C-alpha cells in the first residue's frame, strides 16, 4: 500500500514532509494547549493563507516567482509578532488579539484572491491540504524548519516548560520571559506555514491540538504527554496521507478525522482505566 509513496517523487516528498510535521506540530502544540493559546494557531493559519494568496497573486498578476510557502511564512511570522504586540496593548483582554489578526488574515486573503481573479484549484489545495503539492524545494525548506524547531525545543525545554507552567514565576526567577515567548510564537508561525501544504489552512490547528488533547487524557506529567502527542500526531499523518491518497480525499480531512478517532479512543480508554485516582490526605 505504501509502494506508491516511494515510487513517485512527489508522493515521497509529501510523505517525508508529513513525517516531519507529525513531529513538530504536536511538539509545539503541547505548549500551545497548556498555555491556552490554541486559537492563536487558527489566527496564524489564516494570516498564512493571506501570504499564500499574496504569493499566488504576485505570480499571476505580475509574473513574480514568489513561492507561496515563502510568502506564507513571511506573513505568518509578521502576524505572530503583531499578535504579541496586540496582546500587550490589550493586557486585560489578551484574547482580543486573536479575532483581530484572524479577520485581518481572511480580509487580506479575499482581497488578494479577487485581485488575481481567483485561482480555484490551487486555493482548494491550500484550504484542505493536498498529497501532490510538495516539491523538493518545499521539502528542504520544511526540513530546515523542523531541525530548527526541534533544536530550540530540546535546548530550551526547561525554559519553555517553566514559562508555560507559571509565567510570573519564570520572570521573577530571572528568565527572559518576553524574548522566549516571542521566539516560541515565531516558531509556531513557522510550523504552521510548514504544515499548510499537507493539512491545509482550515485544519492545521487541529494537527497541533488534537493529538495533545488525546495524550492529555492518558499521560502522567508533561514530558510523557509531549512524547505521546508526537506518537499520535505521526499516526494520524501516516494513516491520513495513505487513506487520503487511495480515497482521493484531501489529506487534511483524513488526517484530522484519524486524530479525532484517536481522541475518542483515548477518552474511552480513560473511562475504562478506572476513575481518576484522587490523592487524599493532609496537606
Amino acid at each position, binding site marked *: 500500500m505504501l509502494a506508491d509513496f516511494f515510487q513517485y517523487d512527489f508522493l515521497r516528498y509529501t510523505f517525508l514532509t508529513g513525517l516531519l510535521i507529525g513531529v513538530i506540530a504536536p511538539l509545539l502544540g503541547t505548549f500551545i494547549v497548556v498555555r491556552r493559546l490554541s486559537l492563536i494557531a487558527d489566527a496564524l493559519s489564516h494570516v498564512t493563507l493571506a501570504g499564500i494568496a499574496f504569493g499566488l497573486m504576485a505570480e499571476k498578476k505580475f509574473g513574480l516567482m514568489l513561492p507561496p510557502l515563502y510568502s506564507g511564512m513571511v506573513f505568518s511570522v509578521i502576524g505572530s509578532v503583531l499578535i504579541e504586540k496586540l496582546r500587550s496593548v490589550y493586557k486585560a483582554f489578551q484574547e482580543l488579539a486573536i479575532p483581530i489578526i484572524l479577520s485581518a488574515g481572511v480580509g487580506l486573503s479575499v482581497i488578494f484572491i479577487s485581485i488575481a481573479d481567483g485561482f480555484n484549484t490551487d486555493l482548494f489545495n491550500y484550504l484542505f491540504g493536498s498529497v501532490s503539492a510538495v516539491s523538493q524545494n518545499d521539502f528542504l525548506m520544511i526540513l530546515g524548519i523542523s531541525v530548527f524547531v526541534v533544536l530550540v525545543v530540546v535546548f530550551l525545554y526547561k525554559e519553555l*516548560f517553566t514559562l508555560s507552567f507559571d509565567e*510570573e*514565576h519564570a520572570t*521573577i*526567577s530571572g528568565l527572559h520571559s518576553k524574548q522566549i515567548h516571542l521566539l516560541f510564537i515565531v516558531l509556531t508561525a513557522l510550523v504552521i506555514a510548514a504544515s499548510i501544504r499537507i493539512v491545509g489552512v482550515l485544519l492545521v490547528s487541529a494537527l497541533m491540538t488534537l493529538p495533545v488533547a488525546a495524550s492529555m487524557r492518558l499521560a502522567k506529567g*508533561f*514530558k510523557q504527554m509531549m512524547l505521546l502527542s508526537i506518537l499520535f500526531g505521526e499516526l494520524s499523518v501516516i494513516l491520513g496521507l495513505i487513506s487520503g491518497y487511495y480515497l482521493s480525499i484531501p489529506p487534511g480531512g483524513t488526517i484530522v478525522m484519524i486524530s479525532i478517532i484517536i481522541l475518542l479512543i483515548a477518552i474511552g480508554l480513560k473511562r475504562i482505566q478506572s476513575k481518576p485516582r*484522587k*490523592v487524599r490526605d*493532609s496537606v
Partner: protein
Amino acid sequence: MTEPVVSMKNISYSYESKKVLDHVNFEVPQGSFMGLVGPNGGGKTTLIKLILGLIKPDEGSIAIFNDSINPRKDRNKIGFVSQKANSFNKGFPATVFEVVSSGLTAKIGYFKFLNKTYKAKILEAIDQVGMLAFAYENIGNLSGGQQQRIFIARALVSDPELIILDEPTVGIDYENVKRFYELLHRLNKEQNKTLLLVTHDTGTMTEYATDIVCLNKELHFHGNPEEYTSLTEKDFSQFYGHPVNLVSHNH
C-alpha cells in the same frame, strides 16, 4: 548584625494616579522571620512586586543583597510563593517533580540540562515539605494544601537566601497552617533562611515571627511580636483607617 537582605528607602508607588505606597522605609534583616500585615489593598503585594523587580518604584531606591545595580543577577537568591498559587491552572499536566524542577530553571542557565545533582536536589526539596511519596503524581491530583507545599518546595529548590511568601495559607485548614508555620520556623532557625511572610492570619504568625510590619500605604508599625500584641484597638483603627475588632488578632 549583618547587612539587611532587603533595604527600601523612601519608596513611593502609584498605579496610574492612585498612590499605593507613600514614602515607605523598610528593611528585612538577615536571618529574620518577618510578618507583613495590613488591610486588603494596603499595598503588601505591591511592595513585594517591587522587591522582586516586577515593577519599578516612582521614587526611592531598593537594594537587594546590598546590590541595587543588577537585579536580575540576584533573583535566584530569592524564592517566591505567590498569593495566586492557590488558583493556578489545576489541569496543568505536570508531575510534582516537574513543577519543582521549574524552580531550578533560571539557576541552571540556558542551554543546559538537568543532571543527577539537580535531580537529587529536586527530590530533597520535595522531601523537605514532606511530599516525597507524591513526587511522580500529577500536581492536579493533589489537594490545595498539598499543592501549596509543592510551591514551597519549588521556592526552596534553588536554595535561596530569602524566601518571600504572599498569603500562602489561604484555604488551608487550621491543623495544616500550624504544620506549615513549623516548616517555616525550621527553615528560619535550622537553615538560617530569611523569611518575609504576608498574611492576614496574625494569630498564628505572632507565635513564630521575629519581626512584624504593618503596612497601609505608609508603614505604620515595625517591631517584634510582643510589641505587636500589646497594641490597642485604637492603634489598629489608626492603621486600618476604620475600627477594628481585635478579638481575631490577639489576647
